[in-house]
Every structure is written in structure tokens, then in C-alpha cells.
């Protein structure tokens, strides 16, 4: 049995490739960390703390004007595979679910609003993590969504708040505003031109940080970088949000410049990489996830550069999400071994590309644009 029929948009609206620069910025997330007075924080909370927090949250969310309709999924009641799918759709964290193979702690839950792309994790590291996950670069909009929900919840819930330190959190790196805004960016141009190091160093100088695909401590895969604010105390939420937005737009400009450099100085090699990636995706019979991510990076670059006409960003976004292990198992209807998973992944990708990503042979077009006599070439 799947609980997905009750989830608004199946939790996938952030894949729709609708916001600004959606080919470069996969998604935007803004979250607020909040805790209630009188209860120990997540890692030290006892069962009665967690249950009391969940109960108070339920009654508070029911009393909100715009957020009462939605689904509250209590993690211990949700089937294992469904939980993993929620994780793969980035609606919950591993922290909320607990270690693989264990039942999530009593009181852990996620509330997904059916009106807006906004959700609340309950009893994670902090009692509440109010978050919005949107497609493309939409930091301001994501902030407004979480702010509104937070305002409404705060009218009912006794938040742990300190006059000097602001909103109190389990980890001192979140205290103050409790706000973490992040954008998930695809930066192959900067990686291929070896400019990425400079850019990442620059980020750290302006109070931002980066992570890999799966958040803290994870590796960078497929040239995807999650860029977020580093500090949460001493700046207003608006400043944090504006700053990330400005810097993200600057990084996008650098990335676009890097891509122009690639086209100018290494068009042949770049096109070859892109078409090889497309060819492998189109015909491979086994694809480990990491290899898929690297190939998708090449194809995504090709799409942005208009070298692969007919492909849509949405198709590529789907291929990243539906090829994760729990999604493949859900589609297959049974647990998959790693080799089976790789084979299913390749099958899924071939099928999607056959229906949504068939590209006319463009031999002639490629010949015309081979840049051996590019006047700007160095």
C-alpha cells in the first residue's frame, strides 16, 4: 500500500523546472528551525517530549488559516519504502527517519500543506523545521512561504526564544534566525574550466558555504552544488535571503561565462562529451546512480547550450529523482539488489528518453558549427 495519494503533488512540484534559471538552479530551499519551550531538543527529547511536541504542533497547524489542509504523516506509521521515497524527494531527512533498518522514533512526523509547497518536519534535530522547496531560483518566494507559516504557528506555539540570541536551536550554528536558505546549482562550466575552486573560495569569504547532493558532509556528484548561508545570527532574515539571491545570480553569471569559454575554446571536446553522455543514457543496460548523475550533468549542459534540441529540463529532473533506489523498488514492486537496481535504472532512463527525449540526428548542424575558424578563438 502506498500513502502517496494523500501527498499534495506527490511532493514533486519542485521538479517542474518552473523558476528562474531552472536549467542551472534545480531547486531552492528555505527552512526555519524552531523549538518549543519546556521540552528537550530532538537528540535529548524523551518519548513524552516528542509526543507532546507533535500534539501541540497538530493543534497549532489545525488552527492556521491557510495551512490546515494537508497531510500529516507520522513516520512510524509510514511503510519503510514510502519513507525512503519521501527522503529521495527531499521532503524528510535521514535525521528524521533514523538509521536505515530501524523504525523512526515515536513522534517524528512531516506535515505537507496541500495549498502551498511548504512543509514542517516535527521532532527532527529541532522540534520543528518549517521548510519550503521550490523549483528554480526563488529564494524570496520560499522565504515568504515559510515566514507566513511560521508567523501563524508562532501565534499558538510557545517558541524557545532568547532576547539576545533569538530563536534557540539544538545546534549553535542555527541559533538566531534559525534560517538556512540554499540553492541547488549545476555548475559544470566552472568545473570544466577549473574556475570552480575560486568561486567556492569566494563563497566562503562572503559568508556562504557549499555542500554536495545530499547535504552536510556529502560529496559533490554530477557537478551539483548546494550553496547556502553559513551564519544565522546577527543578520535579518531578509538580509540573509537577499544576500544568497545576489550571490547565486552572480555565480550563475560566472557559470554562463565559463560555458561560453568552453564553446569558444573547446567546442569539439564539449560537444563530444555531451553526445557521449546522451548516447550512454540512451542505450546503456546498467547504470550505477553516480554514473547516471555524471551523465545527466553532461546532458543538462547540452540542453542549456541548446545542443540537444527537444530535451526538457523537467525530463532530466525526473531522471534524477525516479532513479533513486526506493523509487526504482516502488516501480518494480519488490526489493532490488544493487545490480538489479542498476539495470532497472538504465531501463527507466531508456524508456523516458525514448518517449520524452528523442533527439533528431543533427549531423549537419554539428558540422556547420564546428568552430575551427572561430574568429574569437585563442
Amino acid at each position, binding site marked *: 500500500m502506498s500513502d502517496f495519494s494523500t501527498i499534495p503533488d506527490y511532493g514533486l512540484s519542485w521538479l517542474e523546472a518552473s523558476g528562474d534559471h531552472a536549467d542551472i538552479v534545480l531547486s531552492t530551499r528555505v527552512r526555519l528551525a524552531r523549538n518549543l519551550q519546556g521540552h528537550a531538543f530532538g537528540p535529548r527529547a524523551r518519548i513524552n517530549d516528542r509526543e507532546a511536541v507533535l500534539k501541540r504542533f497538530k493543534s497549532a497547524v489545525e488552527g492556521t488559516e491557510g495551512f490546515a489542509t494537508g497531510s500529516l504523516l507520522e513516520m512510524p506509521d509510514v511503510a519503510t519504502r514510502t519513507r525512503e521515497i519521501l527522503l529521495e524527494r527531499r521532503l524528510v531527512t535521514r535525521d528524521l527517519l533514523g538509521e536505515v533498518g530501524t523504525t523512526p522514533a515515536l513522534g517524528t512526523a512531516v506535515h505537507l500543506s496541500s495549498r502551498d509547497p511548504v512543509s514542517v518536519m516535527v521532532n527532527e534535530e529541532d522540534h520543528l523545521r518549517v521548510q519550503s522547496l521550490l523549483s528554480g531560483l526563488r529564494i524570496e518566494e520560499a522565504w515568504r512561504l515559510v515566514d507566513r507559516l511560521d508567523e501563524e504557528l508562532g501565534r499558538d506555539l510557545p517558541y524557545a526564544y*532568547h532576547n539576545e540570541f533569538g530563536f534557540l536551536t539544538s545546534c549553535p550554528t542555527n541559533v538566531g534566525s534559525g534560517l538556512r536558505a540554499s540553492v541547488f546549482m549545476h555548475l559544470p562550466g566552472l568545473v570544466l574550466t577549473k574556475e570552480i575552486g575560486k568561486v567556492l573560495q569566494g563563497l566562503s569569504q562572503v559568508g556562504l558555504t557549499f555542500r554536495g547532493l545530499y547535504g552536510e558532509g556529502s560529496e559533490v556528484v554530477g557537478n551539483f552544488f548546494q550553496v547556502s548561508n553559513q551564519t544565522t545570527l546577527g*543578520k535579518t532574515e531578509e538580509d540573509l535571503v537577499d544576500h544568497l539571491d545576489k550571490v547565486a545570480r552572480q555565480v550563475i553569471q560566472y557559470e554562463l561565462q565559463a560555458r561560453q569559454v568552453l564553446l569558444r575554446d573547446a567546442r569539439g571536446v564539449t560537444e563530444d562529451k555531451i553526445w557521449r553522455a546522451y548516447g550512454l543514457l540512451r542505450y546503456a543496460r546498467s547504470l550505477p546512480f553516480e554514473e547516471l548523475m555524471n551523465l545527466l550533468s553532461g546532458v543538462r549542459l547540452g540542453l542549456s547550450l541548446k545542443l540537444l534540441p527537444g530535451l526538457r529540463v523537467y525530463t532530466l529532473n525526473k531522471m534524477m529523482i525516479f532513479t533513486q533506489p526506493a523509487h526504482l523498488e516502488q516501480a518494480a514492486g519488490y526489493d532490488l539488489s544493487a545490480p538489479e537496481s542498476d539495470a532497472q535504472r538504465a531501463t527507466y532512463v531508456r524508456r523516458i528518453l525514448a518517449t520524452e527525449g528523442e533527439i533528431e540526428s543533427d549531423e549537419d548542424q554539428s558540422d556547420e558549427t564546428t568552430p575551427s575558424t572561430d574568429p574569437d578563438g585563442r
Partner: protein
Amino acid sequence: MSNHICEKCGSNEAVMRLTQIVNNEMSTYHLCETCAAEKGVETAPEAANFPLTDFLAQMGDERGESDTTPDLECSFCGLSFKAFRETGRLGCPHCYETFESHLRRLLRRIHGGVKHVGKVYLPPDPTASEMGKRLEGLRRRLHRAVDSEDFERAAELRDQIRSLEPV
């Protein structure tokens, strides 16, 4: 990271690990507080994420407190300062008061300051919320009374609710 000597000055004890990416190559240095500050890493990402627990582990030691002074403990949740240093996670809102002086230093180091300037939170009006809770309880009981067809009780409850409800 225990007892590294600062790789820059070669004399002080290193209190943080700095990871830099230069020309796509990642390198890690162990630095003392002074050299780290010189490199301007106070608010660099690594300063908060990476060596937070390292820094925490050093916090008491620098003041010579860890062996001689009794361990501070939060009276509400029982978290000891030692445990906080190990995990980097506070136990409850009261921990912020219990460990305030240590935290002040830590927060300055992580965030560059200690004063929240963002959203101001006004706690819910306690009388209103108490009243709300009471009304909610009465309404629940009213439903139950109606469900069990105890109409006498239901009438009583309805009168109580009316007397409490704001006009």
C-alpha cells in the same frame, strides 16, 4: 583532532582545522586561534561546520577548567558541558542560560556576533491560550456527551462554553 601543533606558527596548539580548495585541490591545515584569525577564517564555512566539535573540545581546556572545575550541568535536561563539547548539540532551551558564558564566545566565533536582529517573537498571550485550551477541552467533552446521548451533561457543558466564549 587532538594536540596538533599549529602548522603556520609551529608553536601554539592547533584549535581548528582549515580546509581550503585552491585550484581544485583540497588541502587541510591545523591552525592555532591566532593564525586562524589572521587567515580571516572566523566566519568561513569550515569554522562552523568542520571544527565545531574540535573547537568545543578545546573550549574548557583553554581555561584550564576541564580537570579542576566541576562539570557544569543543565538543571532542566541534565546535559553536562562535557557532553555538549563532545556532541556540539545543546539539550534544551535552558542550556543557553546554563552555559551562557561559554556559548557567548562560541556564538561570536561561529556567527561573528551574538545579537539576534531578525524576526522578533512575541509569545502567545498566555491568558488567551489558556482560555483556548479550556474551551477546546470543554468542546471535546461536549462532543463525547452528545455521542453517548448524555443530553443533560451536554446542556451543562454547552452553558459553560457559552459563559467562557468571547462575545
